[in-house]
Each structure stands twice: as C-alpha cells, then as structure tokens.
C-alpha cells in the first residue's frame, strides 16, 4: 500500500505518514492535531467530520487520505482569515446556532461550500444542501437563520 507523506492543509504543506487508505479524519486529528473535524458515524451520514477539499464539502471519515493528497484541504481551524472570524462563524455566534456544538465545525464548513456556489440561497435551498449534517440537539432553525444571516453579511461586504 502506498504511503502518503504530505498534505496541503489550510494553506500550509504538512508532512504526514499514513497508508493511502487511512481515513483523512484520522490523519487530520491524530497526526496534525486538527481536532475541529469530529468523528460522529464513520459512514458519511452525520457530517460532523466535514472538511473542504478544493472548496467542496467532503466527509473526511470515509475519504481515504490518498484521495485528499495533492488537493487543497480546509478545516475549521483554517476558516478565519487574518485573525478575523469568517462571517459564518460570526453568524453562528450571533444566532446562538448550537447547543453542544459538536456538529458546528461540519455545519459551518458545509455552509461555506453552499455559499460559495450559491451566495443567496433560499431557506429551502439551505435545508436541502445541509440535510446531510445532523444536529442531535435540534438547533436546525437557528443554523438556517445563521447561514441566511451570513449570506447577507457576505453580500454586504462584497458591495
């Protein structure tokens, strides 16, 4: 089995050592100390492990690290730019869009991918896009509110 020795994470080249089949999640958490991505199910059903691969949301729990090598990986730790929270992070704070917050990293990264391809989603589009992410505490309405709020902020920042 081929060994993977480097990943491109949050804009930096990170040396690692893993078999290509090792889940990306395990490498991020245990080798790179990026524990913002969470294990929730191991089968891509809950979205707690979501990271961005070239700006697309991926379940890192069932993405082999070999498939991630050579791509640009963004984790929740890399979302804030220049010490400023991403508008989605700020919106989640402002809306109180969490209880236990174990799902929050995955929610924010999935939402970031949504707003990249659809900067002005309707409420229903948000629900459809986010449906693969589980919040067991049931804060869904506030998460929708936060995402719509962030979309507004980002539109304002652009203009």
């Amino acid at each position, binding site marked *: 089995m081929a060994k993977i020795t480097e990943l491109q994470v949050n804009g930096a080249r990170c040396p690692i050592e893993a078999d290509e089949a090792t889940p990306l999640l*395990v490498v991020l958490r245990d080798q790179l100390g990026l*524990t913002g*991505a969470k294990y929730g199910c191991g089968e891509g*059903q809950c979205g707690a492990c979501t990271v961005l691969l070239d700006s697309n949301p991926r379940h890192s729990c069932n993405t082999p690290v070999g498939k991630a090598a050579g791509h640009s990986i963004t984790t929740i730790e890399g979302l804030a730019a220049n010490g400023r929270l991403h508008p989605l992070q700020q919106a989640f*704070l402002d809306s*109180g869009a969490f209880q236990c*917050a174990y799902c929050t990293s995955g929610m924010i990264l999935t939402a970031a991918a949504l707003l990249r391809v659809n900067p002005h989603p309707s409420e229903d589009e948000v*629900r459809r896009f986010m449906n693969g992410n589980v919040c*067991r*505490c049931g804060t869904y309405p506030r998460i929708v509110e936060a995402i719509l709020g962030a979309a507004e902020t980002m539109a304002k920042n652009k203009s």
Partner: protein
Amino acid sequence: MSANLGPQFEIEFERYELSAGLPYHFELGRREFLKVFGGGVAVVLIVPRAEAAQESGRRQRGFEESMPAEIGAWLHLSENGAVTVFTGKAEVGQNIRTSLTQAVAEELRAPLGSIQLVMADTEKTPFDMGTFGSRTTPQMNLQLRRVASACRDLVIALAAKGWNVDAKGLVAEDGEVRDPASGKALSYGELARGQALAKAVVAEDPLLPASAWTVAGKPLPKVNGEDFVTGRHIYTPDVKRPGMVYGKVLRPPSYGATLESLETSAAAAPNVIVARDGDFVGVTAPSEPQAEQALAKLEAKWKTVPGPSSRELFQYLKANAETGGRGGEPFETGSVEEALKSAEARLEQTYTVAYIQHAPLEPRAAVAEWSGGKLTVWTGTQRPFGVRLELAEAFRIPEDRVRVIVPDTGAAYGGKHTGDAAIEAARLAKAAGQPVKLVWTREEEFTWAYFRPAGVIEVRGGARADGTLTAWEFHNYNSGPSAIRTPYEVPNQRTEFHPARSPLRQGSYRALAATANHFARESSMDELAHALPHGGMDPLEFRLKNLKDERLRAVFQAAAEKFGWGKSQPAGGHGLGIAGGVEKNGYVATAAEVAIEDNNVRVVRVVTAFDCGAVINPDGLKNQIMGANIMGLGGALFEAIEFENGRVLNNRFSKYRVPRFRDVPAIEVVLLDRKDIPSAGAGETPIVGLAPAVGNAVFHASGTRLRSLPMVPNGLKA
C-alpha cells in the same frame, strides 16, 4: 415515589427533599482554601446534608480530603479581580456554563468577562449528584446566586470598613464598589487585595427578586462560543496526553455472550498490547488504525445465549412484569369499575413505545492515565462523581486516587450517566502502562450504550355525556413512572407502574418516561373527546373542562391562541392536534399541524407554550424548547431500535433515522414568564407534548389513530 425500583431505575431516581437549616456548624477548611487560592475572598455554599447526601447512602467528597461533604459550590475573588466559580455540574450542551455565569454576574454585579466557571472536575469542584433531572437551574443557579450575593456583601463591607462609612449607602456595580456620597470607588480586585477571607453561607441570604434582574432574563450568547466556531474547544475525544496510545475493545457478538477462548497470536505486532481480564478483551496500539487492525486479528470464541426480539417485545414486557413491589403502591381513589359501568363514553386502549438511543453526536469516550498509583480520566459524563466511584470500585482503589474531569461535552440527553468508556480506557491504560484514548464507534454506541426503556401502557377511561371525566385507569409496563399521574380532575382513578425484566440495558433519557406517559394519556384524552356522544367534543375544550390547575390551563390557552386553535379549518390532507401536561414543575402545551403526503406524515407547524417559573435566559430556553421538539420528532415518528437474539440490527445512522433539516417544522415558542415563581428546569419537559400532539393531528387529518411510538417508521399505512 419509592426509590426502591431495582438496579436499572436507581439512576432514574432524582427527586430530592429540600430541608431547611443546618444540623450543625463546622470549621470551614479556611487554611486549605487560602493554600489553594493564595488570598482574596472565598465564599462557600453549605448545602444541608439531607440535600447533599442522596446518592444511595454513598459518601461524597469534593476538593480532596480536606473538604467537608456539605459544600455545594464556592466562589473565589482573586486579588486581581478575577472571579472563579466551582461547581460539579457538567456542560453537555444545555448552555449552563452561560446561564450559571450569568447568575453569578447578576448577583455579584461583576462583568461577565471577569467570571470563569470551573465545572465537573472531581478534584477541583465540590461533590455533585450529577447533571440531570433539570436540577441545574432550580438548584445550582439559586446556590450560585447565594454565593455571589454573599461575596458582593463582603466586598461592600470591606469598602465600608476602609472608608469608615455605613455599608448601606454603598453601591456595587460593574465590578466595583462606589460611595455616591463621596464619589470614591474601588474595584473588587482592589478590595480583595491583601485579604484572606473565607466565608460560609447557608440558604438564607436575600436574593434579588426576578423582577429586578438586569443581566439574567435577557438573551446572552454562549460565553465561550468562539472556542466552538473555531474548532478550538477540546472535547474528550480531542484530549491528547504525552505518550498516549489508542484503545479498542473487543465486543461480544450479542448480549450476555461469554468468552470461551481467545487466540491472540495473529494480532501480535510491535507496540501492540492485548489485554484480557475475564470477559473483557481490548487492545492498544500507537494509532487508531493499528488498534483496529489488531482487534480484527483476535480470534475469540463466544458462548451466546438466546434472547427475545423487538417483534415480540411488548408481549415479552407484559409477560415479565411485576405488580406492586419495585413499582411502588398503585395510586387509587374511588372505584374505576363502578364509574366505568355508568360512563356514557368509554375508552380502553393500549399504547406502546419502542427502545430508542440517545445517539449524542459525541460518542462515549475517555482518556485514562495512571500516574504514581493515581488515575485521571477525562470523559463526557453527566455524573463525574458517580463515575469516580465506578472507577474506584472497578480498580479497588480509594476514591481520592481517582480524578474525573469532564470537558464540555458533545451532548448526553440522559445517556451519559455511567462510566463505561472511562472504565474500559482505564483498564487498557493499566495494561499498556501508558495513557489510553478510547472512543466508541457509532456501532458500539447503538449496541452497548443503555437505551430509553420501551414500554406498554394500558388505559381505560370513562366520561359523562357532557364531557366530565369520571374514570381513569393507567398501567405503565416497564417504561417508567415519571408523570404517570393524570393532571385532570377524575374522582375514580387507578394508576400503577409495573417494572418488567428488560431485554435490553435501559436507563435515563431526556424527560424519562414522561414522554411515554404523556403520549398515552394525551392520545387517550383525544380519543375520549371524539368518543363522546353527539359527535364528540373539541379536544381542547374537553381538556379544559376537566382541568383545574391554573398554570396548565394557562399554557393550553396560550398555545391554542398562538396556534389559532378552532379559528380555521386546515388545508386538505392536513390535521391539527394539541397535547400538554406537567412534569418537574414545568407546564407545557404543544399544538401541531401535520400534512399527510403520499402516506407520509410531515409535521408542518408546532407551537409550544411553556411555563417554568421565572425565566433566566429566554434565548437559551427557546433553544432548549425548539431542540426538545425536534429531538422529540425522532422518537414520535421514526426512531426505534430493532433487535434480535441479543443483537441490534440497526446500529448505524444509515439504518436508524434521526431528525434532519428537512424534517423540521416551523416552531413557535410562547414563554409564560412567571417572575413570582422560582425557576424550574427546562431541558426536558418541553419534549413531552410533541408526540401526542402529532398523533392527534394525524387522527384529525386521516382518521387513523396511531398508538405506537414511533408512529410512522414505515409511513402511514392506508
């Protein structure tokens, strides 16, 4: 209710008796405080023994050996003005770190940013029974308020002494004491400087009335929210210790299986350790994948035992039920038989609820470390001191050699009362001679964590033609006694809880059996309303006709008004339902609108009215009520554990459906803020109205009465 309900109900018992006054005074461990805090002002709250010592007669301690058992919480004001508050409660997503900080800020009149809470660390915080039963707000919130107000009085007294003025003329505000007469002001830090004060307070200090709250009662964002949106917060599965290795546990193929033989040679590899202790088998390795590989290479032979399946569950529970004994005496008044004979409308029905899993997104996990004969365990649990005792018993060491630390946890919902993962990790760490991290897989969660009890509920009811209830009989088999008594006025009643032998390991779940009992009762009330002569009676009118409790009437009326109950007919294929009740001093009524679409039930709109006394954090409270309704949707509509011969068949999220974004209805919350009534907890009770309201709405829409939770795991059959 008797506490004597047998082992599986031991942890469900959670009603304490409050007793006033102190039986005796003791010397406060002042020296120990000052050793730890190094000066400043410390205030300790003394909890009367009867309230503190409820856990099965087990002794309890906090703060190592030096601290007496009666301490409920304490607060330290340092010489630089930093306030640290110590409480044994755990943050599991209910946002009590925020609401408790808010309570302290309010009474101490100090900025939120100056206050830090140290929670659920058995070596640092005082003993606490556990974080369950919605006790934090009615109890700990009040206790911390007392501690904080005492500290405020102390700093005011210090200022008064320093300025040689009457304390009554001084004002404490925003972390400083001011003298309006002279214009002098000193910060709390300046006042604490050079002091070594330790004061004990009991429950009698006057508190601000709820109407005078300034910070409390207003929405407040999560105090450490930024740690969560940036991924910085360290949950138990994120804890890393020097030299730490990863553990995995070999699970039996089915419940009750015993290990006959184990062949480990294929798993042998450098730095892989296999541990066997009776039927417990586990491995450790330098990485999680290596541990998984080693586990897969173990060759174990198990002796299995047959067990019932979920298909015959309800017959099994009835056949294995007890009457009297562990279930306590039945509640009986009048004669149900006589009243039923003369009733003009009758009901006799059976309702069932399935086993379900809490499925918190953070699975059970622990990091265990032995050092110098002492064990430290990080784990997500609602009972840090209970888990400490479990660990001490498991390893036959004194409790003061065990420290349990609970990082703010990825939810629990009543499911994390035990220390399973903690004990396993500690056993593996002992074998490995290194710290061990153990994180349960989702499949392990769905099989080896305890379940919300399944149950069978039989109801008989009778009413006169004018809608007056005359007879009520209610038997709950296995699911539990919470909220089992009807809040309606009925002269002839018989209510009984029958414990049964449970085929699955069962324990607490958000709101306990109040969900099952409300489902059965509020569905029955609906059925009775429709069964009345002359075309039945409006279900809300029928309830109000038989209800005297003013607070319950008020939430029913508030929910109905917001919902527009009785104002208009729903669209075709839609139906409306209402249900409510009272539990743990919380009064709830929920109205729901459902749509039947292609034989599926979609909940369109929910209105919940809730009264838990004075509202402390309306924003957090609304979040809890919405969350409870959404969580409740799962158990109401589709969540159920399927099992056969001691194996869980649907042990993954791909096979066990939980509520998702697209399942969520429009939810409106009406808060009845009763400033004149002490706050009750609110994390649980709001869940109980949803299932019966939805069931009643489905009947309204389709004429089909659904009497089993979940109601539509496979859609609505025609």
